[in-house]
């Protein structure tokens, strides 16, 4: 009897997963990756709005911050929070240019490998092109609404901070819809993009502090 119940639970469990999400086949993975690489290669710039949700299990509500981002190929990114405070970071070459509500500072990333890695990931997650990164075990699935890629950190130091990156991609145009960074404690940061504009002209001046 107990075995039957177990099997039924297992069936229901796997059914509910399969109804929403299916693992991609090898050929699906290949065509999906080709789509993202093509999109990434043809992307000269991106602007988008975002809402960031910080989830901590002990909080009543997620912490919500929001703002906008700009990307200019090959690797300039400006990330700007406007609510509930004003704070921006520009990732430019080997530097971080920070403007914390008027307090400006520059940080050279040279010294900290982990710091460099985290920033590289933030930049790469904007275009979604992280597949060739050797510090992850990657798995692919699709839902009716989006394609989902899960990057499990294999680098020990990184894994202590972020165990899993989860990216959601628009099925039609390959745009990144959402980035989720999950900590070993299962607390996570979720960033949801909207109003995405690709290949508009962005002045270099946007990337100065």
């Amino acid at each position, binding site marked *: 009897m107990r075995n039957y119940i177990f099997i039924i639970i297992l069936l229901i469990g796997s059914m509910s997963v399969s109804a929403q999400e299916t693992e991609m086949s090898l050929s699906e993975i290949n065509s999906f990756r080709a789509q993202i690489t093509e999109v990434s290669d043809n992307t000269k710039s991106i602007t988008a709005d975002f809402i*960031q949700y910080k989830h901590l299990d002990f909080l009543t509500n997620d912490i919500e911050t929001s703002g906008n981002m700009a990307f200019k190929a090959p690797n300039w990114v400006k*990330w700007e929070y406007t609510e*509930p*405070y004003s*704070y921006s970071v520009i990732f430019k070459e080997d530097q971080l240019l920070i403007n914390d509500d008027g307090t400006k500072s520059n940080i050279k990333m040279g010294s900290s490998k982990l710091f460099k890695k985290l920033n590289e990931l933030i930049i790469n997650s904007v275009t979604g092109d992280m597949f060739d990164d050797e510090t992850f075990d990657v798995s692919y699935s699709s839902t009716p609404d989006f394609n989902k890629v899960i990057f499990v950190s294999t680098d020990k130091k990184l894994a202590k*901070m972020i165990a899993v990156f989860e990216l959601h991609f628009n099925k039609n145009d390959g745009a990144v819809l959402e980035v989720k960074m999950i900590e070993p404690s299962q607390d996570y940061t979720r960033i949801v993009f909207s109003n995405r504009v690709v290949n508009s002209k962005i002045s270099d001046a946007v990337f100065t502090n």
Partner: protein
Amino acid sequence: MRFLLISLIFLLQTSCALQMTKDWVKSESTQKYIENSYFSELTTDYVYKAKIDVYGHKFGGILIIKKIGKEEHRVVFTTEFGNKLFDFLYQKDIFKKNFIVEDLDKKMIVNTLQKDFKLLISEKAKVEVQYDLDDELVFKTSDDKRSNFYFINKKTHTLDKIVNTSKSKQNVEVLYKEIIDGMANTIWINHHHINLQIELKKFAKK
């Protein structure tokens, strides 16, 4: 010779005495305990934008404080991107480091942070001495080998400041500002011996 010794001891003692309380007048005690209720609501998520200046290095982040039990608080600090830098648990007199990034995991840093936030969230302490100043009532409590002085504004009846001292010197000062409906909207933590200032601004309600 003996005179020299006595005067030397006298000199040392007077110079060691806490300057802050030198001209203060002790008053009769009006209450047994002093309370700090700024982080005492179980249902409130206390979320602050933090600016930290340590020896001229400036960096920011988000400080999250939550009371999770009768005498239990979580204190978490993240970057603006949400990456956790540290995650502390305070249970009565027990302190637990749930998480801290390697770069910060140094005894002196952890001790300083632990004490600062303990001072910030401690809700109740036994009053040892009471002083009556022009604008404030001051309550002295003991904290391990140190003392805390709680400054209550006579006009507004709010806790405006806590000063942590050793026997002879001020160590840390916590200033509670923009107090509205029992909530401190701005908090400053200033250290006197190390070059460390923390400024906290509460997230504005939408």
